[in-house]
């Protein structure tokens, strides 16, 4: 190879470097790999996608499940697993906000900006990282569910479709979180802000308890909450108990369509917004 034998610091001809689509993909792969090294080396982030899903699943099923009776019958365990997917995936999206805000505070972003890189690659790699961690998180929740006796009651195709709806929603949320990371001055603020936005989103929904007995205002919010639509869609596709099916709100009657529409809408709004905010944060 010619570069190995050249004088150590002589300029290399551009021909040995590639640009264009191949290079863009390479940049996404390299930065995603780098984000994973970060997750693996930061105990808190790692536990968010490994220990936390297991812990939440066990706690909610055995503690909360002991006191919840489902109106339409069925076990809380079967009801809970899709809801726990919703809870874990929604809160783990905060990783995008924290990661981005950490990068923006560190000098490494300047290094990226002096390289001939595709500018939005930092964001694209971030959301891809989020989807990949969501897959890991999903595997832990489903694995724990299977161990404690949860079973889907539908075809393999439907189960995969249910998981896919979750992952798409998680991808959409990662763009929301990217915006949160961009408007936060530091990682701590990003973490706090992310929690304030996402935790109520996950809780005021049908994910953990049926909405039927909530106060009217909360119930209306819960029935139109995208997390509820995604959870109901998943319960429907998994063949698990889905009390929301008897609720007249449009998203509860058409949960799969509603989940997809919500996700598309979030991406359509927040992906361009994140790109704009990123440009603004990295221009001086």
């Amino acid at each position, binding site marked *: 190879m010619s570069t190995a034998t050249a004088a150590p610091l002589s300029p290399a001809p551009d021909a040995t470097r590639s640009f264009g689509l191949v290079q863009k993909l390479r940049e996404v792969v390299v930065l995603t790999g780098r984000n994973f090294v970060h997750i693996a080396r930061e105990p808190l982030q790692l536990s968010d996608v490994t220990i936390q899903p297991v812990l939440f699943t066990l706690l909610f099923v055995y503690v909360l499940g002991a006191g919840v009776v489902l109106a339409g019958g069925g076990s809380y365990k079967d009801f809970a697993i899709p809801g726990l997917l919703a809870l874990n995936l929604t809160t783990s999206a905060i990783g995008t906000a924290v990661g981005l805000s950490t990068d923006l505070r560190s000098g490494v972003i300047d290094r990226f900006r*002096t390289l001939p890189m595709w500018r939005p690659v930092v964001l694209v790699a971030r959301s891809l990282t989020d989807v990949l961690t969501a897959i890991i998180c999903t595997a832990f929740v489903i694995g724990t569910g299977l161990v404690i006796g949860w079973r889907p009651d539908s075809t393999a195709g439907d189960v995969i479709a249910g998981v896919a709806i979750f992952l798409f929603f998680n991808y959409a949320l990662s763009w929301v979180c990217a915006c949160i990371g961009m408007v936060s001055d530091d990682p701590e603020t990003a973490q706090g802000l992310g929690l304030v936005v996402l935790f109520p989103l996950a809780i005021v929904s049908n994910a953990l308890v049926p909405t039927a007995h909530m106060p009217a205002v909360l119930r209306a919010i819960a029935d139109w909450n995208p997390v509820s639509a995604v959870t109901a869609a998943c319960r429907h596709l998994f063949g698990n108990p889905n009390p929301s099916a008897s609720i007249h709100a449009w998203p509860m009657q058409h949960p799969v369509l509603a989940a997809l529409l919500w996700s598309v809408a979030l991406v359509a709004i927040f992906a361009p917004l994140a790109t704009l905010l990123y440009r603004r944060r990295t221009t001086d």
Partner: protein
Amino acid sequence: MNDLMIEAHGLGKRFGETVALDGIDLEVPTGAILGVLGPNGAGKSTAVRILTTLATPDAGWARVAGHDVVREARAVQRKIGVTAQDATIDEVLTGRQNLVMVGRLGGLRRGDARARAVELLDRFDLTDAADRVLKGYSGGMRRRLDLAAGLMTRPPVLFLDEPTTGLDPISRARMWGVIRELIADGVTLLLTTQYLDEADELADRIVVIDHGHVIANGTAADLKAQTGGARLEVTLSEPHPAAAATLDPFVAGAVHVSHDGRRLRAPVRSAGGLATTIVRALDGAGITVDDVEVHQPSLDDVFFALTGTPVEGDPAAPAAPDADLEVTPR
């Protein structure tokens, strides 16, 4: 066609009310080394940020390797290597992972990036620490790794922003050695520094910046001539009426005597054996000497000579991260 690798004209930049750069011109021919000298907040980092496409100028224009830094930023980025004042490396990765990442983002294939990382780690004495996470690196190691990162794609133009600020003398000497090797390889280099000796040691030409203006431009010898060269300080055991007259033939200006008559100061042209000559002359006149010092001119002396005011703050203190934002308008 011209052979200027770096060219800037009337470069201006303000941050709100603060003027960081007030129209500076720079020219660096291919293969030359320019030292940009100035105190904290003079505008050095702002100039480097504009030339390396990190910031956009409010006024003027700049070209690097023949490409406009604003309109053809991507083309500029393909030609430059940057070592910023704050280390721009990833704290969580190992040294090797950092270099391979930067190489691949710069367009190298995986194998090429790995081979190049091995070569640079070896060259900068980082092989033993290559697979350690950066949190365990010393200041000097970080700077060398940051420099190595800037060299991954073998760029023909290098920008080093205060490469030795905050380093201990040994790390500093080591960094100088590394930079001298780069120079020997024929790269074009723009280096900012707060130390006159560093600019003197490494650069062909020096531009002095203060409050966003270029206040001097020339070789190190030119600058030293302007400052009157070195400074002699003699401390006597007791005052002596003939002391000043005895020193007079050896100095390059008036001899200043302190109130107590024991300390004498004068500008001198530094020459080999000057201190010996002075001691002998004083001894010959029957004057006993406690101490003789010959000070090489510092940035303070250059500043005092050029502006008539001392450098604000301590130029040797580690720079604040946003030092260039703290400029006060004239």
